[in-house]
């Protein structure tokens, strides 16, 4: 039952997975909440581990959510489910429409799809901020330190152009120093 939920969630996701992994978080979050796989806060942890590993964020997240919900068989099911659409679509596109990205219908579709992908990523940030107490601010040490970590992480990414993996690792060390 769980395996089927995982399969159809990630199989469907595979067909609409445009614009990078973070845009797929709202879909994973909706399913995780609906089927009770995990809380949004736990999902944030999974996305963090997905971001620390090589490989696509969406597929990595799917594997971790699958493992968390149903063990190794869940991880395998989720991986197969999210990869199948890729192989199907690539084979179809490669066999029939070689110049897909020059096609004007496809281009006008992406004219609306790309901004929506941006909305999905913004929505994912809002959802995660709500689930991790970043959205409510009080003047406690906890609240101020979280806001500082957020600001410094963003600074490291945008201005210092650090690799996200290093930012995550450094942030983990800061967390151990501050909160344990």
């Amino acid at each position, binding site marked *: 039952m769980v395996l089927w939920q995982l399969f159809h969630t990630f199989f469907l996701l595979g067909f609409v997975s445009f614009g990078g992994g973070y845009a797929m978080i709202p879909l994973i979050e909706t399913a995780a909440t609906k089927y009770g796989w995990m809380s949004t806060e736990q999902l944030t942890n999974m996305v963090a581990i997905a971001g620390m590993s090589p490989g696509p964020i969406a597929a990595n997240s799917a594997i971790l959510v699958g493992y968390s919900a149903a063990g190794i068989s869940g991880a395998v099911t989720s991986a197969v489910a999210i990869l199948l659409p890729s*192989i199907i679509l690539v084979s179809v596109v490669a066999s029939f429409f070689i110049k897909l990205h020059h096609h004007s219908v496809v281009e006008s579709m992406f004219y609306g799809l790309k901004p929506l992908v941006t909305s999905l990523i*913004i929505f994912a940030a809002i959802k995660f901020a709500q689930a991790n107490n970043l959205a409510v601010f009080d003047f406690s040490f906890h609240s101020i330190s979280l806001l500082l970590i957020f600001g410094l992480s963003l600074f490291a990414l945008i201005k210092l152009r650090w690799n996200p993996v290093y930012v995550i690792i450094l942030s983990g060390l800061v967390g151990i120093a501050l909160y344990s």
Partner: protein
Amino acid sequence: MNGEWTKLLQLFWTFFKISPVTFGGGFAMIPLIEREIVEKRKWLDSEDVTEVFALSQSVPGAVGINSASFIGHRVGGVKGALAAMLGVSLPTFFIVLALGISYFFIHGNPKLEAAFVSIRVTIIAIIVYAAIQTARTAIFDKTTFLIMLAGVVVLFFIHPLLAILLGAVTGMISVFLKRKLGYEVQLKHDKAKDPANNPDYFMGAGI
């Protein structure tokens, strides 16, 4: 072993070796693909690689997986696509699974929990950064800005799957209407760089 199987095995192994470098996105694979596929195996030329990456972005799914599958398909048809996809996916599958298993093994440890309080906030920063990077190529006129804004609002009320379909349909309708009304429609950001040549893009896009 006959020739077809040798080729499939070569495809699998080539992408198996490339796969662990795909930190932060499939575009990181490009230099290695140039070396392994273009120079060493001579399966494709450089121009084909550019074409494959452009095409990979217009098909749903991760760029790394799609481009491997496209190259596999060029070399050995559907079987080739399958071999390349398995090759590119297996190493990262085992790495992420190993990390996940270790996480659940030490789950509940106070130090790990403390680390993740901070890491979760950093992940939100990474997602915000990804949104900024994506917006740079996606938002370039009033219509795209409005679609983005409406998209965020609408996502609080409808299923994300439906929102994605609506986004695609809205794009097609607005381009059609603009053309009907005699506006000139620019479908892409003029300053949009090819992400393949822009390391900034793949770091933020997190594909």
